[in-house]
């Protein structure tokens, strides 16, 4: 047979390529020992190998065994060396029976089970979070979105990591332009390792230097489903427990999944609270600076005297005070994030209570300042999605800077500037900040504080 030497070379080539690996296995099976299997032990399920491959090989003759194998889903015949190599590295078993070679799916996948979501907690409603396995994630989503229009396109990104990504969308609702755009951007991504959703988000978004996120990164399947139904596109990644949703506009970052559960009026109220929180967290420190240093006439006389009184011992100008306290707060948040869960609360207590108390008593910062910093920190956490919450954390320094240089005018001008900047932004061709995001169809109001 003319093909035989070539084939011989395939398994020899394969074993030569892989022989240095500790978990490399090469066995000959069957009564006549003419079945050869090659696989990597660490990637394969040994139970599957024993029960479905090794045992039957002694019980039937070659022809029957070959037929038996080809009935398995996930088993295919191929001659392509490159493909064989790739699949063996994935956890397939290479089986050679005489002149034909098969790849048998015996992947062993280790993953943590479906846990409840941590970064986007809600009060009531579904608790499942996406897992790090794309199949399970698709299962989670398909189960919630049982429609034939839900299309999934697969792609592989990463020269080394070979991460599988799935682009999910509802065919009837999606905007074709956006889909094409996303696909072309994804196909242009060229990296070695891709390990997190944030990374991918960075590669596919328009501008390099921007501070507002244009895609949502979420771990909630129900959010994915909700957005799919709005005609958006979800990108799932293998080995990553997060999905990317695009295009996402400003308003989407202020939607918690609770809003659907709440009564309409309560939902609106909650949404309004979030925008007020946004306004407070961004502008309050800036207003403090502008008020204490430029225009003390805005507020009532009692408050003015109160602030003046509590600042009487503070030797620094107001913006130093503000930046100092805000930085302390940032450290506190960062620290309690990184610390093990057991000591986290201790850091908060020490930092928040003792430091704040001591700083005011020492006369380094005013009492009012402590209140403002706490208000800023708390209202920052009201924003449901972390990407936006982080952005807002940065944004307020920008405003403080302008308040310190220009006073009240600085605040107003920079707020108008931010609104303008946001209006000029596009998320995959969709206007990022628009008053009525759904433009009449549903009339979902959105408010941004200018």
């Amino acid at each position, binding site marked *: 047979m003319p093909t035989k030497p070539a084939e011989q070379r395939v398994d020899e080539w394969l074993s030569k390529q892989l022989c240095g690996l500790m978990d490399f296995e090469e066995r000959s099976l069957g009564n006549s020992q003419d079945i050869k299997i090659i696989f990597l032990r660490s990637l394969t399920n040994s139970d599957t190998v024993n029960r479905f491959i090794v045992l039957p090989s002694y019980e039937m003759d070659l022809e029957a065994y070959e037929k038996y194998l080809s009935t398995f889903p996930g088993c295919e015949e191929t001659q392509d060396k490159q493909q064989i190599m790739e699949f063996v590295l994935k956890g397939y078993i290479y089986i050679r029976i005489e002149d034909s070679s098969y790849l048998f799916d015996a992947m062993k996948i280790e993953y943590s089970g479906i846990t409840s979501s941590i970064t986007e907690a809600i009060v009531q409603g579904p608790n499942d979070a996406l897992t790090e396995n794309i199949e399970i994630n698709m299962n989670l989503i398909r189960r919630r979105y049982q429609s034939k229009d839900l299309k999934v396109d697969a792609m592989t990104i990463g020269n080394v990591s070979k991460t599988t990504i799935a682009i999910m969308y509802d065919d009837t609702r999606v905007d074709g332009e956006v889909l094409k755009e996303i696909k072309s951007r994804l196909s242009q991504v060229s990296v070695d390792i891709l390990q997190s959703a944030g990374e991918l988000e960075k590669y596919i978004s328009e501008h390099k230097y921007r501070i507002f996120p244009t895609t949502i990164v979420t771990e909630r399947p129900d959010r994915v489903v909700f957005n799919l139904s709005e005609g958006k596109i979800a990108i799932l990644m293998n080995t990553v427990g997060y999905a990317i949703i695009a295009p996402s506009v400003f308003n989407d970052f202020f939607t918690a999944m609770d809003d659907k559960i709440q009564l309409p009026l309560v939902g609106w109220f909650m949404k309004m609270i979030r925008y007020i929180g946004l306004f407070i967290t961004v502008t309050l420190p800036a207003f403090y600076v502008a*008020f*204490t*240093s*430029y*225009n*003390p*006439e805005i507020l009532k*006389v*009692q408050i*003015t*005297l*109160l*602030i*003046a*009184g*509590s*600042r*009487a*011992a*503070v030797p620094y*100008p*107001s913006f130093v005070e503000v930046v100092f306290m805000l930085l302390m707060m940032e450290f506190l948040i960062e620290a309690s994030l990184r610390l093990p869960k057991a000591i986290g609360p201790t850091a908060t207590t020490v930092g928040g209570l003792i430091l704040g108390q001591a700083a005011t008593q020492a006369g380094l910062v005013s*009492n009012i300042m402590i209140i403002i910093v706490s208000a800023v920190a708390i209202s920052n956490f009201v924003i449901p999605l972390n990407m936006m919450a982080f952005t807002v954390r940065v944004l307020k320094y920008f405003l403080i*800077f302008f308040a*310190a*240089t*220009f*006073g009240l005018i600085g605040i107003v001008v920079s707020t108008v500037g931010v609104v303008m900047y946001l209006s000029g932004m596009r998320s995959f061709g969709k206007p990022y900040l628009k008053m009525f995001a759904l433009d009449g169809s549903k009339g979902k109001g959105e408010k941004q504080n200018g």
Partner: protein
Amino acid sequence: MRKCLNLMLVILLFMLSLLLAGCQFKDVDRRAFVLGLAVDSVEKKEGQGEGGGGGSKKHLVQVSLKLAIPEGDPTKRSQEAIIVSQISNSIPEAVRLLKSKVDKELDFSHCKTLLFGEGYAKTDIREMSDWIARRRDIQLIGHVAVARPTAKEVLGVRMISERVPAYALILSLGKEGTESPFIVSIYSYNFRRHLSEIGADPILPLVEKEEEDVLVINKAMLFDKQRVRAELTANEARLYNLLKTQGLRTSFNVELDDNIYTYNMETTRAKFKLLKSEEGKMIVQYKVGGRAVLEDNSKSVTTTGPILEQVSKAASKQWEKEIKQFLVKIHGTGLDPLGWGLRYRAISWNNETEEEEWRKLYPNLEFSVKADVRIQYSGMIR
């Protein structure tokens, strides 16, 4: 390359703008907040005119400021106030001289009490009123008043009830705290409007120092366009408020059958019309009225419906009499605090001659008052 350049540019801009800061950057604790301003005129021989140098010593003014000194602990009642004053030949000059008496920058932006000393108000208030309207940092919603004996003394009174210096004056002059019917509350923009308006003259409340720490505000001063012309008694000030505002909270008493009934007004209303009488005279016709509750009667008579009706009638009659007296008195001063002239201008469509006509009509004005007091409730008991 280009990016690098852009970045440099941005950094440069930021640096530059940091330099800009500081030109007016003054923290709140480096400012001394002026909470009250008082202007008195000074007698010629006393006034030395420390600043300004020479010039005519005719109008020497003494400017006094009440400054709040914020202290560390806001929970304690330690908000001390200090009073600084300066004599000079003009108000701005005095303020400039006062700056060197205080260690902090004077900030007028919370100055809501503006007092004219009685003596000053009797000479010429135009300078002060011009100054307070011209300065951007003095609010137009400040309260203006005349002070007796001098503005400085009134400003120096520290009421026991006040937490923030001079706040008692703000509360009472603005009727934010007390709702005394005797206080004529005038904002500075309002005062300014009446100073310039044709056919309406300003009126200001009078603040009197009674004891060391008691202030009384129940009288009012009538101005022409320049200075004080007449004074209203407490009762007249109340009648003025009754005619000028709606829903005044006050009580009156009326005598009926040797029994003195006191009733409290729940609602009041007042409006006037200008009518031409047959002889070509102008009649100012006031219609006043309101609903009242009986507060007490001196002989504890059981109040029945007919009695209430009788009391109402008597009260209305009394109102008519008192108001008419009051109007005649005002008319006698030749002033127009209630804006009859303006009303005439507003209703007359021949604009060229209206001012002239009014000038002719004014001396012969006649007044008629129709009062309709309805005492409808007798309180908790009959």
